[in-house]
């Protein structure tokens, strides 16, 4: 199709189209919005950066100078001879309790609520209750732990320590994060496309077979993320531990990682951090910063493990 030379009127028409198409080059509100988003992101990252920089620089002397002793040593009355061994051990066991108790229990509850229960009034009542539990302040869980695990069940959780043991602490924090695990796991299960379930049922799978072979593998990355958030929350809580009776000062025992020491008195990293931060002097401040770095490293390690596992699960999903 040979085009003739454009007449002047068609040239003018093309000009009109061009000016129309190129008119709106600037979009001030869009730009402003984008800039404000950038500011929000930068502010968040900057605050986090300053925080980490501050604790690392303050705590570096303690960490670099006598790391071996600092990480394994006992609580002491002077900053020079104080170490985190007992606190790390307490935090480690709290993590073990959460992983062993809360993860299976919470995930099972979520599977029941999402995959098995009738979606009636009772179910939504339970869901609302669980959401409310997730919002209950941690001190309240501390009182719960004090009443049940320390006082009522003290003879079981620690007869020689009046129940103020890492067992009581682990159980209390497990209950504290249980609603978080249930909610996030339930959300991950809800995000599984229904077509996958129907496909499974369509070839004659039972509900259990569908859940085990298709729903859980698909939801695994999301469930994992939620559980690690819950774990990090449990490792960082101080308030409930105060009520459950974590030791803030001098502590005999509470060092051994052997399970038969579980019913001794204990302390944990958040407790040590809050106690030391109240003590006077530069040296205690440095030790506090160093303890914060140790707690952050532990939480980051848990997150890192979650990311690695998550990537493995997601590879299976593609």
């Amino acid at each position: 199709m040979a085009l003739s030379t454009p007449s002047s009127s068609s040239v003018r028409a093309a000009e009109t189209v061009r000016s129309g198409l190129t008119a709106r080059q600037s979009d001030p509100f869009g730009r402003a919005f984008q800039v404000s988003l950038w500011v929000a992101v930068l502010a968040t990252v900057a605050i986090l950066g300053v925080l980490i920089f501050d604790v690392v620089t303050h705590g570096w002397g303690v960490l670099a100078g006598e790391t071996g002793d600092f990480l394994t040593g006992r609580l002491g009355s002077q900053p020079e001879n104080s170490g985190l061994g007992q606190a790390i051990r307490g935090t480690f066991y709290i993590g073990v309790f959460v992983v062993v108790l809360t993860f299976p229990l919470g995930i099972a509850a979520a599977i029941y609520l999402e995959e098995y229960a009738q979606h009636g009034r009772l179910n939504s009542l339970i869901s609302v209750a669980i959401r409310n539990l997730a919002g209950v302040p941690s001190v309240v869980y501390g009182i719960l732990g004090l009443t049940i695990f320390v006082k009522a069940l003290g003879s079981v959780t620690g007869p020689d320590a009046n129940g103020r043991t890492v067992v009581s602490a682990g159980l209390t924090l497990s209950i504290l994060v249980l609603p978080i695990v249930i909610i996030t796991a339930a959300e991950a299960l809800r995000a599984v496309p229904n077509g996958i379930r129907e496909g499974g049922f369509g070839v004659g799978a039972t509900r259990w077979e569908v859940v085990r072979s298709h729903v859980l593998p698909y939801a695994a990355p999301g469930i994992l993320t939620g559980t690690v958030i819950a774990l990090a929350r449990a490792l960082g809580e101080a308030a409930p531990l105060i009520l459950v009776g974590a030791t803030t000062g001098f502590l005999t025992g509470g060092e051994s990682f052997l399970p038969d020491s579980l019913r001794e008195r204990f302390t944990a990293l958040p407790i040590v951090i809050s106690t030391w931060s109240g003590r006077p002097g530069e040296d205690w401040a440095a030790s506090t910063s160093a303890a914060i770095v140790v707690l952050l490293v532990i939480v980051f390690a848990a997150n890192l493990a979650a990311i690695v596992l998550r990537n493995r699960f997601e590879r299976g999903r593609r």
Partner: protein
Amino acid sequence: MAVTTGTVSADDKAGSDPVFELSSLEVFYGEFRAVREVSMEIAEREITAFIGPSGCGKTTVLRCLNRMNDLIETARVQGSVKYHGVDLYDAAVSATEVRRRIGMVFQKPNPFPKSIYDNLAFGPRLNGVKKKSDLDDIVESSLKSAALWDEVKDRLKSSALGLSGGQQQRLCIARCVAVKPDVILMDEPCSALDPIATARIEDLMRELTSEYTIVIVTHNMQQAARVSDRTAFFTTEVNPESDRRTGVLVEYNPTSKIFSTPDDERTEQYVTGRFG
């Protein structure tokens, strides 16, 4: 307009026992009656098509045939659905066993997010096939019967989600065939596919009738005309009391009759494009 919603019988060309006998089937979603008084017989090794406008209950009826409606909590079924003479909704009947015999292909291709091989091996494994060589044979034969083998034989271990839409739907058909069902139900299997993929699946359906009874729901009248032996036309009727729409079976006849000289005026209007 006088309409019979009782038994609409199709003249029985095969003369064999029907696979399904539906009598006065009604399905409710909560208080809402989605379809009422569907009675029909579905013949063996034929393709039966359900056509009709949206909301006429054709998918609902289809999902009753393998108790897929059980998965919807509010769904309730009245009347009877007999499969080779056995009432599918009898309390002693297991929905899982029903679905092993009556497979289903869905509107949207829904391969499992696993390898092609694992998609096909899932059903046979449930049925206790454990030996690798047996599974390999099933995978190969079902992919061949779904006309997919040549395209995927070199990448059985790669993810099923890497296949095109048409390939995914054929994979779902193969997955269904892999458990050696008696009947295959298809719920608008081509609605998400382009014409070439659709043509392939239609060819496939014709080939599968040598072994399987197929019931297909389709929005596409030409598709029903091309592939099916019998066609059931459903439509909606407004209930004068509640003003709610309920699906009804208008006419069930050999496909050639439905598309040339239907018994019911509404069928004629629908197939000629004047309504629906």
